[in-house]
């Protein structure tokens, strides 16, 4: 029997800011690296779907000058956290190049986490590096007795994160989809979603994917939690830089009111 998971997130503890050492870095797909960083403080507190702001501190001027948000993808007993970093633009490329022994400035854990409903099956829908939060969540949830499906989509096989490592971290094989069919099933990962019985659907990935799922959730009447992306300045609610549009038309901060929202809390304007 799954136990109820109580989100502590409404009254979020103050995040921690600290200099941390990169323990290891490993390329896990064509443009994606798996970083392990020594951060007992954050490892001890991070919840599923929370993120860190990672940067280089005040003396650094080249991109990333502003820290960048990355999901906590893993937390280990020994105080390491894992990040899955895709080299996307110039700032994330520099982060992907981080090597063991380099230091970064971390701020976290941040944001409102995913919530699991006791007694429900858990379906995680990951698009690309949207996989990150589910590495951490799927393993924990399985250990707590949840029945978990992890659907994971990429464009092509070379972008797929090492599936053996995914299985090792999450305690089960992912269901892989590629748009060109070069690995796993062919098509969009969202096609893999079947909603039957009590189910908690969690999604993280590009906005078009989330939009498609939100449409289905509204039509088919299931609860959907999504982790959204928006440019961030501070990560802690001071700058009001990271807004997404709420269902009532008002702006909501992705960093403190999200990044996880119920899809029904947001406006999904046609792209």
């Amino acid at each position, binding site marked *: 029997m799954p136990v109820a998971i109580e989100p502590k997130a409404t009254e979020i*503890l*103050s*995040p921690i*800011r600290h200099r941390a050492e990169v323990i290891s870095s490993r390329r896990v797909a064509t443009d994606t690296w798996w970083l392990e960083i020594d951060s007992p403080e954050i490892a001890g507190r991070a919840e599923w779907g929370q993120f860190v702001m990672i*940067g280089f*501190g*005040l003396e*650094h*001027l080249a*991109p*990333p*000058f*502003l*820290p960048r948000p990355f999901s906590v993808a893993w937390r280990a007993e020994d105080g390491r956290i894992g990040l899955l970093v895709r080299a996307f633009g110039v*700032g994330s490329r520099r982060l992907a190049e981080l090597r063991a022994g380099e230091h970064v*400035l971390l*701020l976290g854990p941040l944001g409102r986490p995913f919530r699991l409903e006791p007694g429900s099956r858990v379906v995680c829908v990951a698009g690309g590096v949207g996989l990150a939060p589910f590495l951490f969540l799927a393993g924990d949830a399985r250990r707590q007795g949840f029945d978990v499906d992890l659907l994971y989509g990429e464009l092509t096989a070379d972008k797929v994160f090492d599936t053996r490592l995914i299985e090792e971290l999450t305690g089960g094989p992912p269901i892989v989809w590629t748009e060109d069919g070069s690995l796993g099933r062919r098509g969009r990962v969202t096609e893999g979603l079947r909603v039957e019985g009590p189910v908690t659907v969690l999604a993280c990935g590009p906005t078009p994917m989330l939009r498609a799922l939100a449409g289905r959730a509204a039509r088919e009447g299931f609860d959907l939690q999504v982790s959204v992306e*928006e*440019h*961030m*300045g*501070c990560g*802690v*609610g*001071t*700058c*009001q*830089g*990271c*807004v*997404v*549009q709420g269902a009532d038309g*008002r*702006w909501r901060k992705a960093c*403190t009111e999200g990044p996880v929202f119920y899809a029904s809390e947001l406006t999904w304007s046609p792209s």
Partner: protein
Amino acid sequence: MVPELRQSLFGVEFQAPVLLASGTCGYGREYAGLIPLDELGGLVTKAVSVEPRSGNPPHRVAETPGGMINAIGLENVGLDAFASEKLPWLRENLARAHVFVNVVGRTVEEYAAVVSGLDGEEGFLGYEINVSCPNVKGGTMFGTDEAALAELVGRLRSETERPVIVKLTPNVPDIGIYARICEENGADGLSTINTFPGMLIDIHLRKPVIGNVSGGISGPAILPMGVYLTWRAATACSLPVIGIGGIRSGEDALQYILAGAHLVQVGTASFVDPAAAATVQEGISSYLAGAGIGSLSELVGGLRLPEHGQH
């Protein structure tokens, strides 16, 4: 010997010269527990307008070389919610750090309504008037329109006995003119500077990155402009000046102080490192200690000019 950072200004004592800049520290509470707010000189709230404002569409922030661009659109809860929801926390949690309320409006009346509406409340020292706002009447900004600025400052002076600090806009040919207008119309001080207008284009999408098309540039990139404009403003009038723009170290802050600033504000640097303001404050202190300078106030405006300078 611990150097003396205290300064008496605006009728009170500032325990230290570093404040958090408007728009980069929310209403203070967001930083509670993360940084030692009450050990700083103070903070300036996000802009407050008479009605709530919803602000601009995303993206609202992005990185630029050595800095950032932002177009938040002065999103804020409005006067009433500020007084009932935000001010109480500041009143109850800050005993030593001073609070300025950053004020915006589209007309002189709107500014005046914020000031008169808040004036009876407790929990803050005074106002920082953001004049980088379009003036509905004239179409230009208050901060680039001499007559509108004079009228605005004069009117706010008549609304309050609290300190009125005018935050000047940098994109004018001679900031000294605006500094003197503020002085002549009864301001108590100046803040220099607000952000520079800028634009960032996503060349792949051929669209502005920022939802509002253009935005304000801040961060280290604007440090030398801020120091210059602070020096120009401080030497053009006799008002105390708060130096702002690109500060991320004690050395940066000391450039502003030598140029004539009594206090400084740290903005963008807090995003890079929430401990930035405390780092700046410690940096000032350790510089003074190392140089054997007993009190920060000895350095205010202490810039020595060469004889030949033809600025």
